[in-house]
């Protein structure tokens, strides 16, 4: 009975994801007639502009939403299990702050050379974010080997985050409004920032992180019963911790580098998955988080395009928080 219910839920989530993905393709700030939509999908003769919007604008965005939703949710799940803290998320290690600092550096400080970053084009911001995230990751990994207990690691991660944030503020204070706006827009996050040329790279990073996470499923289940017991079972806790941090960095750092910061998905989705499937087993919760995360981010992306916003779309980062925060409040109230 239990297994049947779980499989049914999985099937429903997959269907929901497909429906949401199609809806995200179909709806946007430009209304595309249904016959044109079909024509583009089937490859029949269609308007050039519609084809451009659908294939080169909306389709990569949908794929990015799925990848980002997947990566952030799994990263959040890993961190919540590692720290045994329901409010942990992909950003607790300060990796996002590191990415932000990298972007702040080239958008605001390097006014002479940074911007176009030696002709790197759209890769400039991505490269800066990756370098920033990797620098913080390295520090956290070194700390994780040196510091035996988890709470200290959590605090150190948060401190890295604060340092990154503080330096970013310093740059903001001394920079001009135009560069400031470039940076602020980056902090909004954008699923449409990933073009086809970048997609393989994003896919690779997220794929690696995801593969690593799947290899760690058993270890994650062992961690659930406590580090001391895990040690007793002969599991190398330090090694697992190292790999978990690496996987999280690939997943969360990769998405942040390409799409900018997208908050709350990582913290909320594991809770939604656990609530839906009534389970703590990572063999169920990990794939469930992938599906829930993709669905939630697709839904959020549809919301950003709601009509009646004039020419504007809402920043994805605000929409996820507007969705995510009430869910966290609900979880806390339910437990009280």
């Amino acid at each position, binding site marked *: 009975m239990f297994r049947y219910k779980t499989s049914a839920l999985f099937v429903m989530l997959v269907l929901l994801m497909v429906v949401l993905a199609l809806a995200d393709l179909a709806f*946007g*700030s*430009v209304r595309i007639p249904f016959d044109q939509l079909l024509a583009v999908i089937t490859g029949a003769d269609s*308007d*050039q*502009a519609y084809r*451009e*919007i659908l294939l*080169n*604008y*909306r389709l990569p965005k949908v794929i990015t939403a799925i990848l980002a939703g997947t990566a952030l949710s799994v990263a959040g799940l890993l961190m919540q299990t590692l720290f045994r803290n329901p409010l942990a998320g992909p950003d607790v290690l300060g990796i996002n702050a590191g990415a932000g600092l990298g972007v702040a550096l080239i*958008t605001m400080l390097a*006014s*002479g*050379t*940074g*911007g*176009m*970053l030696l002709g*790197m*084009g*759209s*890769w*400039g*911001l991505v490269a800066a974010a990756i370098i920033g995230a990797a620098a913080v990751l390295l520090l956290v990994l070194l700390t994780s080997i040196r510091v035996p207990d988890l709470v200290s690691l959590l605090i150190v991660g948060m401190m890295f985050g604060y340092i990154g944030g503080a330096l970013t503020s310093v740059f903001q*204070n*001394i920079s*001009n*409004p*135009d*560069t400031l*706006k*470039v940076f602020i*827009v980056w902090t*909004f996050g*954008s699923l*449409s*920032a990933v*073009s086809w040329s970048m997609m393989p790279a994003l896919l690779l990073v997220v794929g690696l992180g995801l593969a690593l996470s799947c290899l760690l499923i058993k270890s994650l289940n062992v961690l659930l019963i406590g580090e001391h017991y895990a040690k007793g079972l002969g599991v190398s806790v330090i090694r697992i911790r190292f790999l978990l941090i690496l996987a999280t960095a690939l997943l969360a750092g990769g998405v942040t580098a390409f799409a900018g910061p997208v908050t709350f998905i990582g913290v909320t989705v594991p809770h939604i998955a656990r609530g839906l499937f009534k389970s703590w087993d990572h063999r169920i919760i990990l794939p469930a988080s992938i599906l829930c995360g993709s669905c939630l981010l697709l839904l959020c992306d549809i919301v950003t395009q709601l009509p009646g916003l*004039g*020419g*504007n*779309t809402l*920043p994805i980062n605000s929409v996820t928080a507007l969705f995510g925060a009430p869910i966290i409040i609900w979880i806390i109230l339910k437990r009280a």
Partner: protein
Amino acid sequence: MEQLLSVKYLLYITFLSGLLSCTNGKPASGRDDKPLYSQQLTYAKGFSIDYFKDYKRLIVYNPWQSGQELERYYLTSDSNCQTPLDGRRILTPVRSIVSGSCTHYAFLDMLGVTRQVTGICEARRVYNPSIRQGCLEKRIADLGDPFRMNVERCLMLKPELVMISGFNQYDENAGRLSDAGIPVVFNNEWMEQDLLARAEWIRYIACFFEKEALADSLFRLTEQRYRQLVALTGKAQGKKPLILSGDNFRGTWYQPGGRSFTAQLFRDAGGRYIYHADTTRGSIPLSFEQVYKDLAEADVWVGATNGASLKELQALDQRYTLFRPFREGNVYAYTNRITPEGGNDFWEGAVARPDLLLADFICLFHPELLPGHEWTYLKKLK
């Protein structure tokens, strides 16, 4: 409506096929040819215009790396003409344009081409009356925030040209539009060092509409008026007034840097600005106490931004009363021409007409030089 759409579509296809025919043909060499004629620019450093037999070449330089080219465009009115392959080919005159910055409006208006504008950013903040009218009549689409332009809507407009400001960053949206076959050109007038240089970009915009002669006479007129006004300040009798500028925000007072447009106006209009030696182009963040120590006894305060009246300013911060210009009611803001929605001609018209702006400042610092002057951009706060 249907018919109109299909006509537009047809035009678009012709345009595209023109592009293809050119790229399929034998590439013409671009760099070795000598131009027949090059437009001499008096002030602007951000672009150059060269005329060849069948086309003109526009080069936009990278304002952040001196001497480096940002992009080059080849403008031709002949759809069969082959242009060099090292730059974007643009068919002129452009019949529809999307403008990504409010600083273009006044130029477009002076050239008489606002009817060709089909999309802009932040439509509710427009001051320019004819662009505003176009927005109200829905002739001009609103594409949202210029930093996050609505790409889908812009693609649907199928503009023949998208003109945007460069921001020392790769512009993702510009890349997308470009990939979709829509020519995106950069207009970096805001990075010029000099007010007249900024105004000279009218020559650049005019090229796309084949209105260079008009641009030339308009710019010469602006330049002449500006020079005459500067010469006029030589006759000023009284001492140069000491200027307090910018405004205080939570304890930090931002004053225009010594190399900013505002500082140039202070200098050209015969004012005394203590940060003239400063080399910042943006604004300089200063502590409230520093500003109080240096400028509490200034003669005039220009560019107050936080309040629309003296009362509002005082309600925000009682300490404003410590400053002499505030006590004596000599506080001015750039808000003489505004719309209720927040459009301000200071950001639009003043870019193209620095002479009007200068006249305001001269009247403020040396009223005897311009008797009967009516304010264009400056407004005295009450």
